Structure formats: C-alpha cells, structure tokens
C-alpha cells in the first residue's frame, strides 16, 4: 500500500532555535500514527508544516501523494485538521458550524445531508442542532470539531492533542471514533501526551528536542527497551492490565528522553 504521508529531512528553524531537526518518517495509508513527546518536542510544529500552516526551513514532505511545499492548495482539499485549541465558532450553533465547514469543503446537496446526519449522530448532537456551540460541554464540542474536520471524508486526518482537557470517559469515546475512521481507510496522525492514548496507535513516533528518537509499534517500543535491560521496574509486559501497560510505556518514554537528553548535554 502507498504511504499516506512521507517526510524527508523536514526541518524548521525559528531564528537560532531548531524546532524540528531533520525528521524523516512515513505513515502507511489507514494507519493511526501517534506523535509522542514532551512539550516543545516539535510535534505541533511538524503537524503545522504537514498541514501547510507553516513553511519548512528545509526538507520535504508529501501528504496523500501531494508535495506540501508546491501543492499546498491541493493538500488542503484532502486533509482534515483539529487542534488542541477548540476551534469551532462558539457564537454559531451546532448546525451553523456544520453548514460553514461543509461549504468550505464543497460538500453540498445529498452528500451534505448525509454527512450532516452522520456528524450529528457521531457527536450525539441530533437534538441540539440549534444550541450555541459555546454552551456545549467540552467533550461534545471536541466530537463536533472532529466531525467538522472529517465532513469531506479526508484521506488524511491530523489531530494535534485533540483530547487535552477532556475527562477519561469522553476521551475513550473520542478514540472509538478515531478507530472507526481508521477502519474505513482514513489515515490518522495524532499527537498526544496521554500515555494510555499511545496504546490506541498502530505505530508511535517519539520526539524530543525536535528530533525523532524512536519509531515503532507500542509493543515493539516496550520490547526493544526491555531487551536492552534498561527498563526499571517490571519488564514483564505480556498480559498486564491497562495500568501496567501504561506505566511501562511511560517508562520507555522517560528512559528514551533521559538518554537523549544526556547525550545532548554531556
């Protein structure tokens, strides 16, 4: 299968500061690809470059086979984007937000009716179409934002810390939706700093100080570190419950960042 996203030596500098440093990776079509890393690791900057919000200093990237540097207009037609900032219009109603974004994405006629019904059902907002978006609880807002980002059934969906600030239940429900999108062939690139969310991803890219320091499946990441014998505490990651899995992934993460940090400093 063709790669949905390819990134080659992507770099972004802000003055002397290198936010993203020669990052390369590829995301397979239909994959849920997780971006993991501490604040300031360069996750958001990478996503902003892939969505055409920010020009790279050097390097190249393609999204759905289109070069983000030269075909930015075409890229915007086939991607969906949702950021950590809740970014629908609070002073518009649920229905008005859907209408606006459907119009911007050119979703009209019978397809519009279908997609509108689908988004309302997905977000559980069928009875609240005339409510102002600002009055909705955060979890619902976020589901609506996701719905508006996929109204046009994009090939690639970018989610920048989409669940920050939501309660665990709403977060679980949100990830069920992402799973559903992925099953229907949407490629999802998602950044997060919630460890339990990393478990939902097919593959994880660990970022630190603008560099990609590891790229593997969640189990692969745990395994590589366990075999290296540097994991403190339990290295038994076979059939553990949620909590155990989470703590060990977190250990992998902390260990890798610590090593990386050490290498840079000393």
């Amino acid at each position: 299968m063709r790669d949905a996203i390819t990134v080659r030596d992507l770099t972004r500098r802000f003055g002397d500061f290198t936010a993203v440093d020669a990052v390369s990776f590829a995301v397979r079509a239909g994959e849920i690809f997780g971006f993991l890393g501490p604040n300031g690791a360069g996750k958001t900057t990478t996503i902003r470059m892939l969505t055409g919000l920010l020009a790279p200093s050097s390097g190249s990237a393609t999204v759905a086979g289109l070069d983000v540097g030269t075909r930015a207009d075409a890229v915007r037609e086939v991607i969906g984007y949702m950021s950590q900032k809740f970014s629908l219009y609070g002073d518009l109603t649920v229905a008005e937000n859907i209408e606006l974004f459907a119009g911007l994405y050119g979703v009209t006629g019978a397809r519009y009716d279908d997609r509108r019904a689908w988004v309302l059902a997905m977000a559980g907002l069928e009875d609240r179409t005339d409510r102002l978006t600002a009055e909705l609880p955060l979890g619902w807002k976020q589901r609506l934002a996701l719905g508006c980002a996929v109204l046009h059934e994009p090939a690639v969906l970018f989610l920048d810390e989409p669940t920050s600030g939501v309660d665990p239940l709403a977060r679980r429900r949100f990830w069920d939706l992402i799973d559903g999108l992925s099953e229907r062939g949407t490629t999802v690139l998602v950044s997060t700093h919630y460890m339990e969310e990393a478990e939902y991803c097919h593959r994880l890219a660990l970022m630190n100080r603008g560099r990609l320091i590891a790229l593997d499946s969640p189990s692969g990441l745990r395994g590589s570190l366990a075999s290296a014998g540097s994991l403190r505490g339990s290295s038994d990651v076979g059939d553990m419950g949620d909590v155990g899995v989470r703590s060990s992934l977190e250990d992998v993460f902390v260990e890798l960042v610590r090593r990386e940090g050490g290498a840079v400093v000393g």
Partner: protein
Amino acid sequence: MRGPNPLRVRRMLRKELRQIFRDPRMKRIIFVAPVIQLVVFGYAVNTDIRETPLFVVDHSSTAESRRLVDALTASGYFRVAGQSDRPDALTRALDRGTAIVGIQIPPDYAADLKAGRPAALQVLVDGTNSNTATVAQGNAARIIRGLAEERLRSGGASPPRGVDLRIRAWFNPDLASRVYNVPAVMGVILMLMSLLLTAMTVVREREIGTLEQLMVTPLGTGELILGKTLPVALIAMVQLALITGVAILWFGIPFRGSLPALLIAALIYIVAGLAFGLIISTVARTQQEALMVMFLFFLPAIILSGFMFPVFTMPPVFQWISLANPIRHFLEIVRPVFLKGYGVAELWPSYLWLLAIAGGAMASARLRLGGALR
C-alpha cells in the same frame, strides 16, 4: 491562481453576518456610533459665532448710544452679558470670561455725532480663542459701520467714496458650520466602521484560533478577504444611506450633486478602509492591540484630512503626507458633491487618488495576509 469559489465566499459571508449581529458589542458599534457622531457634529459642534456675550460700558447714556447697543444685539450675533459705567467692571468680565467682547462708549459720543465729528468707540476682544475673536470682531465692525453709513444717509450726506466691499458666501450663504460638517461626518463614520469591523473580526479569529482552522480548509486568501470584507462593506453602505438621509431630511443639508458621484466615491473609499483594517489585523495579535493601532492611524488621519482644519493651511510636508490619506480625498469629494453639485467630471483627481490608495492598500493587505497565514 484560481478565482474565488462562490459557495465558499457565500458561506463565509453568512457566517460573518450571523456573528456580527449576534454580538451585542458589534451592534452597539454599528448603530450607536453613527447616531452619536451625527448629533455631535450636527448640533454641538458649532463654529458659527452667535450670541457672543457682550459687556457694555456706556458713559454716554444717550439715545444714540442705546441705538448702538440695540443694533449689536438685534443682529443675533451679540447678547448683553453685563452693563456698568465703570471700566474696571469690563476688565473683570473679560478676565472671568463672562464676556468675550467689551464695548466702551465715551461720554461725548452723542455730542461728537451731532457735531459731525468722528466719534471714537473702544472695542475689546478676548483673543484666547483666535477663531471666535476674529469672527466676533468682524461682526462688531460690520454692524457699527452699517450704523454709521445709515446715519450719513439719513442726514442727507452720501457715504464716503472708495471701495464698496460686498461679501457674499456662495454654496452656504449663512456660513452654517453644520452644512460643512455633516457631509464630512459621513467620511469619518464610514472609515471608522470599515477599519474597526474588519480589523476586529480578523484579529478575534486569530485570538480564538479559528483563523488557523480556516487556513487548513481549501478557503483561499482572496476568499477569506471577500468573506471578511463584504459584510462590512454592506453595513457601511447601509450607514451611508442612513447618514445621507438624515443629512438631507433632518438637517436640511442641500444635496446638489448626483447620487452616483457619491456612491462611486463611497465604494472606493470603503474598500480603502477595509484594506487598512486588514493590514491592521496582520500587525495586531489581540483585539486591544488592534484597537490601539487603529486609533494610532485614525486620529492623525482625521486631523490631516481637512475635517476640522483646512489642508491648505498645513505646512507643505503635511500637505504632502495627507495625499496618502483616503479621508482627505473623500472629504474633497463629498463636500462639493453635496454643496456645489460637482461630480466625477470636476473632481476626478480626488477619485483617482482614492482609487490608487484603495488599490495599493488592498494589494498589500492581500500580500501581508497571505504571508502571515502560510
């Protein structure tokens, strides 16, 4: 380059109008500001000097001297604010500001007149406000001269020969400042609205983060600009109709020109305002900043526009600078269109200037906005 997609522009336009009319703050700005400006400039700001307080020291106390005071007050330009037979009372009145003009009539005023000798009068004027002083002085001199000529004529003698100066003000015979100010208020309100609404709606989206969300959709820079500016232009045109209506029907300002001449100028002028609003929105990060930058631009632009002080009285440097000021050119169109019945044929240089400013500003707004977003 692709042309604007009508569907996207339409949806943006609908969204903007919904948001603007849902925001009580915006509604106040749109509807209250023009009313206040019209009332202030239609009623309060009055540079006609009528009812100037006059202090009279009459040492003569004769029918002749009373006739003089009557002539002054009957004109409507003066009212007697105080009277005394002691000169220091006059000084005090001028000091305290209870009188702007003082007149002192000497004891032998009536006797001199009867004897055919030149009679002396002292007129004192408070020069603190040079404009008021000049006008009051002119009024007093004109009335007193009129009285003297009348006396000569009734006495059978012909007035002294020489230059007979007869001044008539054209286009605004009463020299009413309202006639001059109200059309200009249009220029101020249209600029204020197009600047403010455009800058605020764009910066607000930047603050909330929705601007970024818009930029990852296929919405192009041109479509964003159209979606943002068309609703403001619509509102500005409604206000133009409103102000023109009030000016003509309520304030009785004569409208001697053609409606198309006014409309064309207003359209170009509004586009200039929208473009400057967009430029401000690329400079400012927050709404407060936008407001500050706006007034930094707006206040000097008003002062250098000829709204209050004529452009030709400014030092040459400022006259040059004001050539880039859209408000100046709009006022140079709107006043003659109203009062002189001029049109594009007479005022084409001002139209061209406006067009150049609007085009240049819009091009740079587009560049800056495209650059700021990508």
